[in-house]
C-alpha cells in the first residue's frame, strides 16, 4: 500500500469518486456499515457530507432538493444547512457532518463524523 493511501486509511479517509459523479445541485450516497452518508454538490461545485438522516424523522437528505447551501428533506420539507448540518431556524436539530475535501476533482471523505452535533444520533426509523 502506498504511504499516502495508508495515512488516509488510518484517518478513516476514503476516495469516494469524482465531483462530476454527483449532479450539480444534487447528492449521492456513500453506503457504510454504520449507515448512509449523503455527499452533496452545490451549484458552484462545493462538496459537503452529512449523515443521510434528517434530524426530524430520519428522512434521507440525499434525496432532497439542494438550493444554495441547503437541502430540503424530502419527507417533511425541513431545511438543513449543508455546511453545519444544523436545521434552518426556527426548526432545531442537527445532522452529523463528515469532513470532506476535493483534490484534483476527486472527493475525499472521512468516515469519522465531526463532533459538536448534539443530536447526531437521529432517531432510527
Amino acid at each position, binding site marked *: 500500500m502506498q504511504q499516502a493511501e495508508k495515512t488516509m486509511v488510518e484517518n478513516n479517509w476514503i476516495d469516494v469518486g469524482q465531483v462530476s459523479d454527483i449532479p450539480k445541485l444534487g447528492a449521492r450516497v456513500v453506503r457504510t456499515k454504520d449507515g448512509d452518508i449523503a455527499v452533496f454538490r452545490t451549484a458552484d461545485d462545493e462538496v459537503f457530507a452529512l449523515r443521510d438522516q434528517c434530524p426530524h424523522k430520519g428522512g434521507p437528505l440525499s434525496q432532497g432538493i439542494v438550493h444554495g447551501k441547503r437541502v430540503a428533506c424530502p419527507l417533511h*420539507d425541513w431545511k438543513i444547512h449543508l455546511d453545519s448540518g444544523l436545521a434552518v431556524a*426556527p426548526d432545531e436539530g442537527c445532522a452529523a457532518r463528515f469532513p470532506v475535501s476535493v483534490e484534483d476533482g476527486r472527493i475525499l471523505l472521512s468516515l469519522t463524523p465531526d463532533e459538536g452535533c448534539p443530536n447526531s444520533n437521529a432517531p432510527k426509523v
Partner: protein
Amino acid sequence: MKQRLVLIGNGMAGVRTLEELLKLAPDRYDITVFGAEPYGNYNRILLSPVLAGEKTIEQIMLNDEQWYVDNGITLHEGKQVTAIDRTKRIVRAADGTEEKYDRLILATGSMPFIIPIPGKDLPGVVAFRDIQDVDRMLAAASGKGHAVVIGGGLLGLEAANGLLKQGMRVSVVHLLDTLMEKQLDKPAAGLLKRSLEERGLNFLMGAQTEAILGKDKVEAVRFKDGLEIPADLVVMAVGIRPNAELAKQVGLHCERGVVVNDTMQTFDPRVYAVGECVQHRGDTYGLVAPLFEQAKVCANHLAELGYARYEGSVTSTKLKVTGIDLFSAGDFQGDDSTEEMVLQDPGRGVYKKVVVKDNRIQGAVMYGDTIDGSWYFQLMRDNTDISGFRDNLLFGQAHLGDSGHGDDNRVAAMADSAEICGCNGVCKGDIVKAISDKRLFTLDEVRAHTKASSSCGSCTGLVEALLAHTLGGEYSQTPSKKPLCPCTEHNHDELRTAIRAEGLKSVRAVMDHLNWKTEDGCPKCRPALNYYLLCQWPGEYKDDNQSRFINERVHANIQKDGTYSVIPRMWGGETTPKELMAIAQIAEKWNVPTVHVTGGQRIDLLGIKKEDLPGIWGDLSEAGFVSGHAYGKAIRTVKTCVGKTWCRFGTQDSTQMGIDLEKLTWGSWTPHKFKLAVSGCPRNCAEATIKDFGVVCVDSGYELHVGGNGGVKVRATDFLCHVKTEDEVKEYCAAFLQLYREEAHYLERTAPWVERVGLAYIKDRVVEDAENRAALAERFGLSQQFAQVDPWKARAEGLDAHEYSPLKRVG
C-alpha cells in the same frame, strides 16, 4: 459614471419606489431625496393610532436616517423643492440647495383640503396630515376641552376617535347625513354612527360650517343655521387633494393631479410621478395599496426592465378604529343594472351587502363581521363568476366548506388546547404564543415557526384569523399579487407571462432575467419554473432533474422509511389474468413486502429499495407495463366502471372510454395531480363527480364534469356540458386539460383553479368557443408527442443511472 436620480417627496410612495429600485438595480443610480418634513419616512396611515395613544412615532418610522446612509442616499431633510429647471435638469430647494438629475421622481403627495371660511387660519385650527398636525392635536388635547372635527369621512372619524381617547369631548360635523358616504351605504353608516355614539362621540349631521370664531385662537364654530358651539380645537378633515403645485408650476401636464401613463411617466419622459399626487387614467388614489403598486411599476422602469405596467387599482377600505369592524370595496352602492344581496342581523350588529352584476362582484360593504372582506375583494379583483356558490355567498367562505375559513369570533372563543392544525398537531395556544413571543406578523412566519397550516393548508383560514385576532389592527392581509416564493417579487401569472413573452427557456434564464434574489432558487420556485418551462416549450425545453421533487426525479413514490412504491399503469383500471400473473411473479422475484390495491384501481408494490427500481421496472416493462405516474404532478388514473358491456344499467361503454382517455392523456405533466373517471350511468360507481375530469355516461351521450376532488376538502365537480360522441369527449377532455396546464398556478388543483377563474370562464374557452377548443386540443396533442415516453423503460435501460446506485459502498 452613475446616473443621477432625484426624488422629491420623502413619503411612503416615493421611498417605496426607491426600495423597489434598490432590489432590482442597487448600483444604477446616485440617489438624492428631498423631504419637506424634518423626519425620515414614516407610515402615514398609522398616524391615527399615534393620535389615539396606541403607538409612538418611533413605532411608525419606516426608514430612519440610518437607512439612507446605509444605502448611500443623500437626504435633504426639511428642504422644500421650489423650482425645477427641466432643460438643464436641475432641482432647486427653497434654501438654495441644488441637485442635478438624469431621472426625477415626483412624489409630492397630497394636501389637506381647507374649507375657505372665515377663521380658518386661527391658531387651534389644524388639519390631519402629518406628524406636526398630530403634535398640535396632542398639545391641544392635554388641556382636555372640546374638539370639533369637521368631516365625517375616514380621516375625520379616526381623528375624532383619537382625540376622544386623549380625553377630549369630541363633536363630529358632517355636511351630509351619512358618515363615510364614499365608503359606506346608509345602513352600514347608521350602524357605525350608533356604535361611535356609544363610545361618546357627538354628531352634527347635515351641518354646514359657516365660520370659525375667535380672537387670538379658536373659540367656537358657527353653522349656516345660526347654531354656535364652543371649541378649543378644530380639526379640518374634509378631504385631500393631490399636491401638484410644483408640477403645474414647471409646466408638466396636470389635471386634478400630475398626469402619468401606465409606466408612471409624466409628459416629460425624464420625470416620473408616484403616489397621491398622481392622476392615472383619470383616477387619483389616497390609499396605500395602489401607491405601492405604482412604486413597483415605476422602479421596474427606472431599473430599465421595462415590462411592468400599472393598470389602475381596485381599492378596499378598513377603518382603523379599534373594536369597529368595517370593510368596503368597489362599487357598493349599485345602480339599476346591478343586484344587491343583503344580510342584516341587528341583534349581532352585523350588516353585509354585496353588489353583483352578471354574476360578478362589483363591490361590498360590511359592518360588524368583516372576516370575509378579503375573500369578496379577491373575488372582485379576479372577476370571478360567482354563479356556482351564489346561494351561499353572503354566509361567507366558511360556509362553502372548502377551506375551513374561520372567523375572528370563532377563534377568539376557542380554548387554547383546541387543535387548529390536524396535520402537525398544533393547538391554538401554541400559535398565539408564537405570534406574541416571537413577534410574528405573517402567515409564512407562523408556518415556519409552528408548522400550523404548512402541510395540507386546510386550516390556513383559521391561522389567518388567529393572526388577525392576536395582532389586532397590526395585521394586514394582502390579497392577490402574492409572489411565488421569497426568492422573487413576481407571482405565478407574471412568471408565466415573462417566460412566454421574453422567450425564456431555462430555469437559469428566468432567474437571471427576473432578478432572482437567491442564487439558485428554493424547493418552491424551482419545481414551479421547471413545470412552466416544460409546459410552454414542449419538445424544446430539457427537463431539469434537480428542480424536480424526489418522486418525480426518480419516478417512484418515496415512503417514510426511504423505500419507494411502484404502481404500473392499468389502462382504465382494467387488467387481465396474464398481467396479474406477471405482477405476481415480479412481486415475488423482488421480495415485495406489501401489495396494495389503490383507490384509483391500480396495484401498488410497496417497500422497493431505490437500487432495485430499474430492475423491477425492466421486468414490468418486459411484461408490457408502463409507469403509472402515481408519484407525479401528472395524469394519474382514469377510473371506470364496467359499463354497458356487463352492467344491466350501463348506458355506454365506459371502460373503453376510460381506456381511450388514459391512452390520450398519460404521460402529461400538469400543475398538480390530475385524476379522471368514467361512469357508465348516473349511478356513478366510478365516482366521476369527485375527479378533475369526470365523465358520466347517459343514454343520449356523455355528461362532462370538471373541478372535483376527494381528499382534504371534498369538492363535487361542476357540470361543464353534455356531448354526444366519443370523439367529442376526447376533444373536450384534451382542451380542458390543456387550459388547466397553461393557466393554473403550479400546485393548484383544478378545484381551486375553477373557483378562482370561474366556471363561466372555462365554459367560454372550452365549450362556447369551438375554435379555441380545437386549438387547445391541438396544443395538447403536440405536447403529448414528447411526453408519452415511458420513463421506466428508459431508466431500466440505463438513463439517470447515477440516481439508482450509491456513489460508493464501504465495508
